[in-house]
């Protein structure tokens, strides 16, 4: 599904984001990426989202070179991916419902479909009662669940989660990870970066360890080892 072909990223200040990364992510996989801060985890995710361009090498989504996608087709590409961030990045002036509906509106879905799917997905993440709350009225865990709901509502092929539990307490962390497991079980590929040893160890899935922009370990059923 995703293929990194000898990808390097050198920033303008000569710092190395990625160095000769080659890896493959298969459909329906649950992949965790671990590493110290600055190891290149976020750069790797940004490459998939086409937010960063590689200095060398190519990144493929299916058979498409991501960085050859023309600007006007970029929104279509991004609708195949659901993104979740550590800082939630919800639209502050939209309610939980509207935040999720927005992702469907931009995909051109009709009102009835939006109403049915948003209600369903809010139910799935356990936030039906907070449907009309604004982000500032929600707790960290609730915000992250709204973000997850927004990411999955269009039934994307891939979910990218950049340290999604970084701002959550253990209880919410556990709930969020259970949600990711459920999403993956339903057939969506999940790529997750985290610093949380407990999360990685409990998942018992594929773990890619990065260091100084390189992949130093790639285990099918790995644990948190730095």
């Amino acid at each position, binding site marked *: 599904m995703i293929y990194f072909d000898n990808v390097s990223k050198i920033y303008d200040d000569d710092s190395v984001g990625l160095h000769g990364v080659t890896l493959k992510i298969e459909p329906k996989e649950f992949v965790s990426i671990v590493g110290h801060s600055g190891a290149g985890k976020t750069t790797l995710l940004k490459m998939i989202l086409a937010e960063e361009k590689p200095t060398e090498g190519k990144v493929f989504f299916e058979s498409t070179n991501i960085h050859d996608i023309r600007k006007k087709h970029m*929104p279509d590409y991004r609708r195949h991916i659901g993104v979740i961030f550590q800082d939630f*990045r*919800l*639209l502050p002036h939209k309610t939980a419902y509207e935040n999720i509906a927005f992702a469907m509106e*931009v*995909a051109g879905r009709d009102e009835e479909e939006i109403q049915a799917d948003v209600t369903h997905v809010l139910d799935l993440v356990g936030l039906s009662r907070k449907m009309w709350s604004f982000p500032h009225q929600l707790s960290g865990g609730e915000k992250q669940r709204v973000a997850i709901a927004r990411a999955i509502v*269009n039934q994307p092929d891939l979910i990218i989660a950049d340290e999604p539990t970084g701002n959550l307490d253990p209880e919410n962390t556990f709930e969020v990870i259970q949600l990711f497991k459920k999403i993956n079980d339903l057939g969506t590929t999940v790529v997750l970066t985290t610093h949380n040893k407990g999360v990685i160890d409990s998942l018992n899935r594929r773990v890619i360890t990065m260091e100084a922009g390189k992949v130093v370990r790639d285990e099918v059923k790995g644990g948190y080892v730095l």
Partner: protein
Amino acid sequence: MWVNTKRIFKAGFIAFCRNAFVSLSAVLIMVVTLFFIGCIIFSSALLKSSLQTIRDKVDINVYFVTNSQESDILLLKKTLEKMPEVSKVEYISQDQALDNFRKRHENDQITLQALDELGDNPLGAVLNVKAKETSQYESIANFLNQQNLAQGDSSIIDKINYYQNKDAIDRLTKLIDSGQKIGVVLAIIFALISILITFNTIRLAIFTAKDEISVMQLVGANHIYIRGPFMVGGILYGLTAGIITLILFYPFTYWLNTYTETFFAGDGIFTYYIHNFGQLFLIIIGSGIAIGAVSSFLAVRRHLN
């Protein structure tokens, strides 16, 4: 397409209402800008009206000898009217000139008595000639002068007052020209400054939403869908500010009315505002909407990649 347009307008309207504080600041700054643009329009109308009043007061008076024939004077009047520079020629007969003189001096019994003692009408007929532009008076005066010289002793023209007033007319012509040029330049400069201030306010308002814009891009929103609500917001800032400005102009012009009556030949600025409300409505609301929409368009463009 229709669904998307409806969603964009709805999102823009909701954002305008929910970001009340940001909207309020943007609207207030825009009210200042539009008020300024309105003041420029009023000043320009004031300047134009005063210049027109002054212009109307400038003319060439051709005085005829007392024994000149009315038919000769009317012939010259016709010739003058055919000249492209001439806008209007007014004929004042000898009798009318006498009447006017009496009216002007109705409280001056000595002058009137002296006039009665003369017996005959000592005043000649007069042609008041108005040119289309003040700069054209010289050529009209030259034409009349040539006529006068060509006829020699049989000339019916007694006096052309242009040459006595030439300096004043020249100075006035220059003043009117400079007044108009300076007015236009100042209006453009001030309008640009106030538009820039508004643009920066809207840019700042949108800068606070740059994270939102990046999230919108990541969830797959295309540029129209991201830019649209912000532009609708900008249009709403302009529309609201325009309406507030037009409301503010009502008491403002009413208050200034008595002070400006002399400029508008007795009518005043309030009357000008009421009579030209349709045009002012379109300019103020149109400017507000255009400034809001263009500023938002440009401000969002910076954050789109």
